[in-house]
């Protein structure tokens, strides 16, 4: 008996070690391009376009080049302002609409709640490219082509189904008795949401908001099709560093690093909050 157990324990450790090594290798493969991008951003174009090397003089010149404002071209600050605007506003609108919807679906589900959920996710089935022509025409007719507003609307629509799905699963974690207790204690729907549900679901809401922010920040296709002239966002600014004349790898790397930074920082900040337990102390 004890020999079998000892054997099993030993085997587990061995298996864990193998999986650990595999995980590290996979992680390294994923991370390497990002690392190389970072390294390239400190090189000169000449070095970056030559054979791969780590033997170079690191400098920040590419960063000053890409952030330098040139008249007539999309500036770094303008693009960041636009991206911040559309990402933050669309995320706020998404949360304002998704929280009540998810609350209703999780706590007071209607008869056909499965169909409702399926409808939400079905809006993501259509390939974006198939809808771009009607969208472009609609945007032109409503006079919102090349404005930040059209991106706010589209990013809201894009993230809403995902947010409803995520938030619903977080709200389902809230013990039903808590909602019932609040109901008996005389709290109305908004009272229940504010005092009972939201504090418990806050880590989940933070995670959802972060994901919406990231998706909106990174979106390229709508931005490039509908905002080619004005209201352009960071992904377009990054792409604008691709030049037909001469080498651009180092500059592009520097621009990409700058574009990634806000997302990385936001992810790092939210990670700590998301890990916190969901409903500690509510249930024995």
């Amino acid at each position, binding site marked *: 008996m004890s020999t079998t157990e000892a054997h099993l324990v030993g085997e587990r450790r061995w298996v864990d070690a193998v999986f650990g090594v595999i995980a590290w290798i996979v992680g390294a493969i994923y991370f390497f391009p990002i690392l190389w991008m970072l390294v390239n951003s400190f090189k000169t174009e000449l070095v970056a376009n030559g054979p791969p090397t780590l033997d170079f003089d690191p400098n920040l010149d590419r960063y000053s080049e890409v952030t330098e404002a040139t008249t007539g071209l999309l500036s770094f600050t303008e693009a960041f302002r636009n991206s911040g605007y559309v990402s933050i506003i669309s995320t706020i609108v998404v949360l304002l609409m998704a929280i009540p919807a998810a609350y209703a679906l999780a706590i007071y589900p209607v008869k056909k709640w499965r169909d409702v959920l399926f409808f939400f996710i079905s809006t993501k089935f259509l390939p974006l490219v198939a809808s771009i022509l009607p969208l472009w025409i609609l945007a032109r007719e409503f006079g919102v082509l090349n404005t930040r507003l059209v991106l706010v609307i589209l990013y809201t629509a894009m993230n809403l189904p995902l947010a409803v799905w995520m938030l619903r699963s977080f709200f389902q974690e809230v013990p039903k008795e808590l909602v*019932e207790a609040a*109901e008996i*204690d005389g709290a109305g729907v908004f009272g229940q949401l504010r005092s009972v549900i939201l504090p418990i679901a806050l880590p989940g809401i933070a995670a959802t908001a972060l994901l919406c922010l990231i998706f909106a920040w990174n979106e390229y296709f709508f931005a490039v099709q509908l905002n080619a002239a004005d209201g352009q966002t960071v992904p377009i600014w990054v792409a604008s560093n691709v030049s037909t004349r001469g080498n651009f790898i180092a500059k592009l790397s520097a621009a990409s690093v700058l574009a990634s930074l806000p997302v990385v920082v936001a992810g790092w900040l939210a990670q700590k909050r998301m890990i916190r337990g969901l409903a500690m102390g509510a249930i024995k």
Partner: protein
Amino acid sequence: MATVTYEEATRFYPDTERPAVAALDLEIEDGELLVLVGPSGSGKSTALRMLAGLEPLDGGRIHIGDRDVSSVRPRDRDIAMVFQNYALYPSLTVAENMGFALKQQKVPKEERRKKVEEAAAILDLTPYLDRKPKNLSGGQRQRVAMGRAIVRSPQVFLMDEPLSNLDAKLRVQTRTELAELQERLGVTTVYVTHDQVEAMTMGHRVAVLKDGVLQQCDTPQNLYHHPANEFVAGFIGSPAMNLVSIQPDGVAALAGTEIDFDDSVVDPTAPLTIGFRPESARIGATGVPGVVRTVEDLGSEVFVHVVVDHQGTPTPLVVKTSPPFEAHLGDVVHIELAGPVHVFDGDGSIVATTRATLR
């Protein structure tokens, strides 16, 4: 404070054929502590949740006082509920938890604080008012849940197995405190439990449910001594009543020994079930022979578990006797009837409670 009346109250859960609660008729007096008891799936919790407004009625009505609350929202019923898992709001402190209902009623802050402090003093919670629920022990959480209910002085207290998450010792202690508190406050209380000891010790009256149907609602003493049917007889009492079904062969006999019923209502030639409590039998010199299985010596009393050969089947019986008593596995003892015997007909309804002798 108010009376509570269930009138033919019925609840079907979606996609089920049998009602969870079937045409429940129940009148609860002002200030009474009524216990709803039954095995799991008996509909006791559903009946309570119907009174709370957490389950809709599919038929019948429910009144609190003179007011028909059948279609009134839970928050407008003026009730307070204690949940099995307490359902304390994790982000609020003990004081905020207890004052939550008053805050919803827009009671001024000063008055709210006063009421919370009063309730905290009653429940020994004063030192914990600023703590969050997660920093409390199980017993303290249970008291906070009680506090949340009493702070708002509702018409009715609803309690859904409030003690079942406590350990055995604390449960017995809290049981007494809870019954005292209810007596002192005089608030009409409906209390759900699956534990018949809790029901018997706390309830002014006890309503026994089975499969959504009310079996009997009476005082604990009457339930024990005058069960309305076989189910109540077997459910109430620990150890359970001895129930033996008899297929008569001209005469009614227990393990081959003829039974002579004092009450002539009993037809000894019909199929029937007899029930007698462990204390209504004794180990004697004559009577039905049985083989000892175990002897439970609790110090103040001794329960002897015996197997008799009844109509070809080994049938277990329990006999209560007083210490000192010694017997070993396999010993043969004789059992005599020494108290009331309940006689049920083929459907399990009571025919008579009578004395009987074994010949």
